[in-house]
């Protein structure tokens, strides 16, 4: 059952991400991205990370993508074309390089002899994924990263304001 679900989610994720890159129409690309996020959320669930899965849906697929779409619809999407130069040479080069990299990584994974997976207690795994467990970790072991992320968001906000606000006094 798990394997089948994984195969489904994984193939949706791969196909949708390829579509994101290849579609010329940005709105369609954005919608494909939502699909991608959704399948990722499914995979999180398979790993019994319920909280992350929910957050993925609410924040990414929900809030952020809606924002994306708004922006795309408000702006003229064809602006994008004039900014980037479309050179077919680039396209082919990019494809070749990506394919080779992909093949190499696959080869490396085949080369690896995996240790027996740590078969943790299934019940315990479920426990780790709960909101309480994550909250505890965030405020103990990961306290500093948590606080630091706050500063990252703050500087991102300030940066965004600096770059976009109409009038700065």
């Amino acid at each position, binding site marked *: 059952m798990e394997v089948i679900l994984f195969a489904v989610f994984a193939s949706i994720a791969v196909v949708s991400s390829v579509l994101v890159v290849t579609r010329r129409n940005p709105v369609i690309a954005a919608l494909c991205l939502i699909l991608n996020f959704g399948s990722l959320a499914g995979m999180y669930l398979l790993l019994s990370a319920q909280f992350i899965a929910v957050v993925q849906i609410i924040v990414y697929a929900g809030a952020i993508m809606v924002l994306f779409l708004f922006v795309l619809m408000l702006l003229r999407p064809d602006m994008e074309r004039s900014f980037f130069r479309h050179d077919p040479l680039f396209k082919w080069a990019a494809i070749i390089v990506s394919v080779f990299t992909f093949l190499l990584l696959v080869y490396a994974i085949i080369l690896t002899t995996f240790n027996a997976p740590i078969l943790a207690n299934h019940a315990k795994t479920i426990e780790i994924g709960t909101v309480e467990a994550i909250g505890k970790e965030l405020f103990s072991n990961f306290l500093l*990263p948590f606080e630091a*992320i706050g*500063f*990252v968001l703050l*500087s991102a906000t*300030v*940066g*965004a304001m600096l770059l976009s606000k109409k009038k700065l006094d």
Partner: protein
Amino acid sequence: MEMKDLFYAMPLLIVGGGILLILLIDMFFKGGKKIIPALTFFILLGTAYYSLFTINQLPIGLMPVSEFGLFYGMLSFGGKAHLFYFLFNFGSAIAVLIANDYLKKIETEYSEYYILLLSSVLGMMLIAGSRNLVMIFIGLEQMSISFYALAGYRRKNILSNEAALKYFLLGSFATGFLIYGMAFIFGTAQSMMLIDIFSQTSVLVKNPLFMIGILLFLIGFTFKIAAVPFHMWAPDVYEGSPTSVTALMATVGKAAAFSAILLIFVSVAKMGPNSVFSSMFSVVAVLSMLYGSIAAIAQKDIKRMLAYSSIAHAGYMTIGLAAVNPSGIAGIIFYLVAYTFMNLGAFGIIALLESKEGKFLSIEDYKGLGTRQPFLAASLAIIMFALSGIPPFAGFFGKYYIFLAAIQSGDTWLALVGVLSSVISVYFYLRVVVYMYFSKSDDESAILEISQTGLLAVIASLVLVIAFGLAPGSLIRLISGLI
């Protein structure tokens, strides 16, 4: 976590608190804006001195915390981390002096500049002090996001916009690989803590995925140090960004990336088949040195020239990585210190001379500067000598220690290529000097007003460049003691 953790994380707290304080001042006190540059400067200076004087200090009655880590092992204390803290803070303090005048000149004084500058410094410190992969990533993002925004600081300048966008796109691309690498490392080592990863390294180095993880991690930071072939962004970004931002990115930003590489690379290279990464870095070093030096010759814009020269400098420092020995590491850190102050001086002078409209950036404009601005010309000449590695300035000893390390590890050919590239680089550095002293200016009327704080920045950098050149021994001894 205990209270002592807070105490030992003092440098981070001061800078972090400073960000919030400035944000508040900016929001609530209309008249408070004037003190923001000064406040930023003193925050950075204070942190720099605190870090410097706690380098060798261990928590009383405890085992060295750096072994063990603050905040549940997330952060180290003292030693190399504090040396880097000092470098970041002191360098940025000088960059604030440069910025203060520069922003006035281009008539865009926003306090966001100082907030973002402090944020980037906080990010750098998180990188250098980190004991956990997550922390490295957060620090890097903190620094990079601040830089992206700062690069686009001149909002009405098309070059500045372009720089910000390019830096953001390519930077995110590189960060993607970094994260990918971290995922491999986490997957194989099953821990994010550096201490756990290192304890298993001797086994893990036989695992291809782990090695790929380390490789991608290193590549992520090789992008930030702008070494060939991950350098393409540097000339455009350095040229387009406001000069005071370039001064920051090209110096302490690069030092932060090196600090991350040193965190991981040393332990892994020590235990693993070091020939793999060593030869990879040899190739990167040779390409960067030659590419940077040769491409710099064709440049007409002085900022662009310095960008290529910084690629070459990244190459010299990479030799120290290829050498994989303690003297190579010490050499890198010495070089970083020297390089930081040389380039701060150089960009400081450029920022002083640059006109409001962004003129006076072509090397041709420096003709006859020797008579118009004798002090600045002499300073720039000294810095150019230092950059090209002519003794007795700091740059010479940086190269010297690096090349020495290469020879010690048997890579004499790398040192030879380094010397060759230095010889090439003399051409474009000295061209500036020749223009300043042996050519007449076409436009004698361009009288430049030189402001005070920028001058102070130049003098401070100059003094350090000369001091580390005359007495490199004390610095290298301090560094060697920390490795």
